[in-house]
């Protein structure tokens, strides 16, 4: 097998940090110096470049495709359409298999792949693509998510009928509670389409192999699940497809679905040449799914003193043309639809629908983000109606250990929500506005104000997120750990299929191996499918699941080291451990170095780690113990708003998050910073603007993400109330702050302006002419 240039290799984890320390990331220095090899850097002599022809129309019939001229273009080696898909013509997540590898007779969203070209040069491939002639019958796009959910006369988008999923939740007697409520508040909320906006575009390399299979170097979140979809489409057995994770430039859910994997493999198998594909930024906006936009209607009733009696909720999530992760996103929106509040009577109806809008699927927060914006907005509304402050209303209704979620699931781990809110409230506030430096002001260096029209506001947000997969899914992970003496030093090699997507998993794999094996030297093997499934780098689950797998694999290796002790030392000890490079007996002290005990022995163990089982949601009542773990973040946002221009400066974001156990403090802080920034983006700027199913801003010129002048300094309070069921007691960290920062910021803008603001992102014109949206 020929290895491409810049393919991933074994990498030694720097430092000697154990669990709880903050050693450097193995990939950190390379990334900072610009030397890290991303999947777009892969190279192989003689390789061709693939390109994808995509639909300009959100909905149209393909009357005919003529590839002759493109095929005749000099330098072109292949032009493929759906007729050339060797196996199954469709793929999809969760066995939905509804997405065509290449469009068959019709397209259902703008950017849907239609044909592939392989050529000597990427420019040649693009020029040839322009020569593919398509005769279209353009149809009126189906873009009304509400009609898709409720109107039986609305045409169907695809064979799987609308709604993709309707998940009800029923608790108590809402009708009766409506009669008892002393205070009733209602809200209609909308969340725009957010994009993951990862910086490394979809890219990879497919290399045809001598056995008729293909070696795939790709940037993805879950190789084994990719493989389950790729193999049938290529008509190959899974063992003939060797997957290697290449440098991933961010993911945030946007790489859970396939992008160029099957396409590049098809071109490689057809041409017999390695084929590289790299999307540009424009194509990337069409090359992955986005966060579901949501339309939500909420009604809460409460007693006069603020105790919530009922919640009546409708959530519509627009998944676009294909299923992707919609089914599970709906499950999350339903089960977490009222958040971490004790509410005795609940009626939730969450719908996921098919339309010809941009396809939507997984994104950090996964259905819980949309609901959190609505339920937290409702808490503020209820506070105002009851004459209470935002923190008190949340404390009155807060869940705690032993509380039940809307699904009836009992929260078994510690959940000190009321205390977390108190902590957030009592953190020192930032100093008042200093208008002498423009960068402190709304508008920043653009100098829209010297302080005129600027008002300060404070807001709170609480989010609760399920960690690991839910609804009965056994998303186990696998780790292989090898311990041997290399160059006189005991060295652990950790091999998993888990995707390092920038979150720092490889760092903590090394920390766990050092902690469990007492060695300093750890080498991380590239992630590939020559080891068992690790599950997805999603749902904030890899520290829990792959961290757990590395831990149990290390424990198995450790046992084998202990088995060597009588062989080497001639007697047994009942109380062994591995610490500081030594085999230690609690009673007899240091016995020997690990190297001396190991000798020539190579110990290798592979273990799976499974979380405790969960159940599905009852299709009628939504009841079930559906989530593996729950994690919470509380935000306090302080904003300055230029109320005349509608510009916002987030002055400070304070976060209180319970992570169970800090495995790596720098990584934990980074996750909270990053998650908060992504939530800030949704609050005030990030939206894929769509008209008639067409994206109007597929570029970083007009899809804005926060800069360092938008993201304020953060004050963090990190709690460690252990979850007894999780490895080391840890909780997933990455997603909860993405939920709560958005509603906290919008609440602060409301506090500054007195406006309703029922839609995110909040745009300047929503503040200056509030009737407009």
């Amino acid at each position: 097998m020929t290895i491409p240039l810049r393919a991933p290799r074994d990498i030694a984890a720097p430092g000697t940090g154990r669990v709880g320390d903050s050693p450097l990331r193995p990939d950190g220095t390379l990334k900072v110096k610009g030397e890290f090899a991303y999947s777009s850097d892969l190279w192989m002599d003689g390789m061709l470049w693939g390109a994808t022809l995509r639909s300009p129309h959100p909905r149209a019939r393909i009357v005919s495709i003529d590839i002759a001229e493109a095929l005749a273009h000099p330098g072109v080696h292949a032009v493929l359409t759906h007729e050339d898909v060797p196996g199954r013509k469709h793929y999809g997540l969760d066995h939905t298999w509804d997405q065509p590898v290449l469009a068959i007779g019709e397209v259902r969203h703008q950017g849907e792949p239609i044909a592939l070209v392989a050529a000597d040069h990427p420019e040649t491939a693009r020029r040839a693509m322009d020569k593919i002639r398509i005769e279209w019958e353009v149809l009126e796009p189906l873009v009304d998510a509400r009609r898709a959910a409720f109107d039986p006369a609305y045409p169907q988008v695809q064979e799987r009928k609308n709604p993709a999923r309707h998940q009800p939740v029923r608790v108590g007697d809402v009708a009766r509670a409506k009669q008892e409520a002393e205070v009733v508040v209602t809200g209609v909320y909308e969340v725009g389409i957010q994009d993951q906006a990862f910086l490394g575009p979809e890219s990879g390399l497919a290399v045809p192999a001598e056995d008729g299979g293909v070696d795939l170097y790709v940037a993805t979140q879950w190789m084994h699940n990719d493989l389950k979809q790729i193999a049938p489409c290529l008509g190959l057995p899974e063992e003939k497809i060797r997957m290697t994770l290449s440098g991933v430039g961010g993911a945030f859910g946007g790489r859970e679905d396939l992008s160029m994997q099957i396409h590049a493999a098809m071109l490689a198998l057809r041409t017999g040449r390695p084929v590289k594909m790299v999307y540009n930024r424009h194509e990337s906006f069409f090359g992955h799914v986005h966060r579901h936009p949501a339309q939500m209607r909420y009604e809460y009733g409460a007693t006069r003193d603020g105790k919530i009696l009922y919640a009546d909720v409708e959530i519509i999530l627009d998944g676009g043309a294909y299923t992707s992760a919609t089914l599970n996103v709906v499950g999350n929106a339903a089960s977490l639809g009222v958040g971490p509040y004790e509410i005795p009577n609940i009626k939730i109806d969450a719908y996921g629908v098919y339309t010809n809008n941009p396809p939507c699927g997984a994104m950090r927060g996964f259905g819980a983000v949309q609901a959190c914006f609505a339920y937290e907005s409702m808490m503020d509304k209820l506070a105002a109606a009851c004459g209470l402050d935002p923190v008190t209303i949340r404390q009155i209704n807060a869940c705690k250990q032993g509380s039940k979620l809307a699904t009836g699931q009992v929260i078994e781990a510690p959940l000190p929500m009321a205390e977390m809110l108190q902590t957030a409230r009592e953190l020192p506030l930032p100093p008042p506005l200093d208008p002498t430096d423009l960068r402190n002001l709304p508008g920043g260096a653009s100098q829209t104000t010297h302080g005129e029209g600027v008002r300060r506001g404070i807001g709170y947000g609480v989010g609760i997120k399920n960690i690991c997969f839910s609804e009965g899914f056994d998303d186990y992970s696998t780790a292989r750990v090898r311990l041997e003496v290399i160059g006189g030093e005991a060295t652990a090699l950790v091999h998993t299929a888990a995707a390092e997507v920038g979150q720092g998993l490889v760092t903590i794999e090394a920390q766990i191996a050092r902690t469990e094996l007492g060695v300093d030297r750890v080498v991380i093997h590239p992630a590939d499918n020559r080891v068992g499934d690790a599950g997805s780098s999603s749902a904030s689950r890899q520290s829990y699941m792959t961290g757990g797998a590395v831990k149990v694999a290390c424990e198995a290796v450790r046992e084998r080291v202990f088995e060597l002790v009588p062989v080497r030392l001639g007697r047994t000890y009942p109380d062994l451990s591995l610490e500081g490079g030594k085999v230690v007996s609690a009673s007899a002290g240091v016995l020997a170095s690990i190297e001396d005990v190991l000798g020539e022995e190579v110990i290798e163990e592979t273990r799976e780690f499974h979380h405790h089982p969960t159940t599905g949601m009852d299709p009628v009542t939504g009841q079930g113990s559906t989530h593996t773990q729950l994690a919470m973040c509380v935000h306090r946002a302080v904003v300055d708003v230029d109320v005349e221009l509608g510009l916002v400066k987030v002055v400070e974001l304070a976060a209180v998050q319970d992570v169970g156990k800090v495995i790596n403090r720098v990584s934990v802080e980074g996750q909270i910073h990053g998650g908060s920034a992504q939530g800030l983006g949704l609050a005030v700027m990030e939206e894929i603007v769509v008209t008639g199913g067409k994206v109007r801003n597929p570029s970083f010129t007009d899809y804005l993400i926060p800069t360092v002048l938008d993201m304020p300094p953060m004050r963090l309070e990190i709690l460690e109330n252990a979850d007894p069921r999780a490895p080391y007691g840890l909780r997933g960290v990455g997603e909860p702050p993405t939920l709560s920062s958005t509603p906290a910021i919008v609440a602060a803008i409301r506090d500054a302006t007195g406006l309703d603001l029922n839609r995110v992102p909040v745009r300047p014109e929503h503040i200056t002419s509030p009737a407009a949206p």
Partner: protein
Amino acid sequence: MDFLRPTTWEEALAAKADQPEAMPIQGGTDVMVEINFDVHRPPALLDLGRVPELFTWEQVDGVYRVGAGVPYVRIIEELGEALPGLAQAARTVGSPQIRNRGTVGGNLGAASPAGDSHPPLLAAGAMIEVESRDRGVRMIPAHEFYVGVKKSALEPDELIRAFWTKPASGPQYFSKVGTRNAMVIAVCSFAIALHPEERRVGTGIGSAAPTPRRAPAAEEFLAAELDWDAPLDPAVVRRFEELAAQAASPIDDVRGTADYRRHAISVMARRTLTWAWNDYLRRRAA
């Protein structure tokens, strides 16, 4: 695609005359983006990065003549005192990396209504020096330079040599609305320049019409109504912001609505005039 690399201004003019369809490229912060996005496929690029004359500025009879290739970072560092409005606008362009490469010349060449340099050039009454091999130099007033959406008065065989502007004789301000606090393309922008010696106020509006433009009625109103020896009359400010907003003819697009742009122009007109006037009175008192 041909890549032409003249090393002198004469060679550059000759290359442009011989191949008028060649796209001039300076810092590449705009041209390369358009090429990468396949918006333009010019048959040739004319790289001006090796033409030393373009990277210098000088004072000629008290007027600044700034080469088209002087990057924004140098406008900020070297000309911030003399051309404060333009320097403020330069500070809002992209990121530090973009400001190291991007130039006023490039901004003029693209003639985008959203270009940040245009409003301060208009408010200051700058002249654009353009030249062709065959017809020599033309001096075009900034307000005649922008003739349509991304269209300038430049002839196909002409290159932009420099812009000319007097050092600020009074306070100048530039203000730009974007939906992010840095690295943002203008939703709309406004520039003001007080010319106390002429008892005149110059204006410039960006991103709120097919071209960058002045607000002539607002300027005329101030020329007639401003009492240069007194604090600002709130009624004058109100009328000025109305006239400034009326000078705009914005559209709804993905960056903002026409209504919002008109509103924002009026707010920026009021604020920048107030800041400039306060500075003016303070300087006079000092």
